[in-house]
């Protein structure tokens, strides 16, 4: 049911942020469609658009696990269904 989701990572830049997130996604059969990254006020800011069609666990569980990975690295990781952004910014 859940298809596209947006993952955002915001926090102090450090080694291996993308690696850890991508490893988790690969293990869970989540396909990355697009990545953009920028530095906002010295903060590492990354956005991924991912396809979760093949995810084998409940979406909420992936949300929690990504949050935990973030806490481990000291960054904030959010995973949200794409519709909230689509609805708000597109007519």
């Amino acid at each position, binding site marked *: 049911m*859940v298809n596209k989701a*947006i993952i*955002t990572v915001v926090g102090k830049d450090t080694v291996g942020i993308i690696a850890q997130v991508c490893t988790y996604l690969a293990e869970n059969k989540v396909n990355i469609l*697009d990545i*953009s990254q*920028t530095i*906002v006020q010295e903060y590492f*800011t990354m*956005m991924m*658009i991912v396809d979760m069609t093949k995810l084998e666990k409940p*979406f*909420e569980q992936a*949300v929690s696990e990504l949050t935990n990975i973030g806490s481990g690295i000291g960054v904030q990781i*959010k*995973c*949200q*269904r*794409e*519709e*909230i*952004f*689509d*609805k*708000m*910014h*597109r007519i």
Partner: protein
Amino acid sequence: MINITEVLETNKMIEQENLDVRTITMGINLLDCADSNLEVLCQNIYNKITGLAKNLVQTGEDISKEFGIPIVNKRISITPIALVGGTACKTPDDYVQIAKTLDKAAGELGVNFIGGYSAIVSKGMSRSDELLIRSIPKALACTERICSSINVGSTKTGINMDAVKLMGEIIKETAEMTKERDSLGCAKLVVLCNAPDDNPFMAGAFHGVSEPDAVINVGVSGPGVVKYALEQIRGKSFEVLCETIKRTAFKITRVGQLVAQEASRRLNVPFGIIDLSLAPTPAVGDSVAEILQEIGLEYPGAPGTTAALALLNDQVKKGGVMASSYVGGLSGAFIPVSEDQGMIDAVVAGALTIEKLEAMTCVCSVGLDMISIPGSTSAATISGMIADESAIGMVNQKTTAVRIIPVVGKEVGDTVEFGGLLGYAPVMPVNRFSCEAFVNRGGRIPAPIHSFKN
């Protein structure tokens, strides 16, 4: 495709500007629960509510987690109980029995409020309406989650002054019966004129008779988001101001529409309406008063406040209407005192009086809301305030409401603490001249001439 700036903007609204969906309210029709036996009636009500809404709270939490948007309240509105309990209830205490049943059902489901302990008496009171009204003080004193509302007038019917008089007395009695908790019962009791059938916000929510068996209504919020947007355009013209409010209201409402559709689909209950209201909370940065200050007022209550509120209310509607397929409920800016830190500050500073608030209710979506007044205020004076608000609603073809708390044992200068979303409030002075002879006349005020449109 969505870009990183847009994603960050949305998440900033949620994390720093208090954007949330204020409530998912499931409306439930209880007319088919009616029975002449009170026990059977209560059982029917309990079964129907706990059956239809059993997944409401869980669904709300799931949606919240998946989209990353807080959904603050999950609530239920029901058919006005005076219509359901008529054949079974012979005394006010019988109605209290229903109130306890509703409270139990709400507790079981984990919803924080259930609205619809109500009667619609805009033209006249039936026997069961009157019994229900007389049961309100006790019902609110012995329950936690019940909200009660009485509609005493409308543009089409005029104002039922007998009900207005009675409600003054009932508010006093409710204050007295909950005096140990700063008369908290009155915070869950609202007197309305032109009450909408599909309002998802408490205390005035009920499931009107024009509604289907069950429905999902959603109330959005986001005063903080509007305030932040306005901070970026300080000193700009009214054209820029209005455009900014409109654009922000559109974005906020789209989130509400998404949540409403998801909730409706998952619960398999039709989507009713989105209520486009700016509903403040006592949290800093979640205040309608701060928007008014950002528009250019030192404090709400200063000259210009009514105009500022009028434009805010109108732009919120204009932005929101396009964002949602169905709009209803109250839809506008709420101006409660105790639930809005900026309003509290304005009262403490001496900028805001009840008379100015009354003027503001002419142009916003509600009325005199969450205002603490001295416990010594007479029932007739409270009825007079209800009559004034009802007249504003009746003549302007809009909803108005009175939710005031005559706090037993407190006087002007004291502060009252309600806790949680209900906040705290300084006790405000009320005009001390009498309206007793006016209120005691009896009967009703006829509908205004412009209501005859047939």
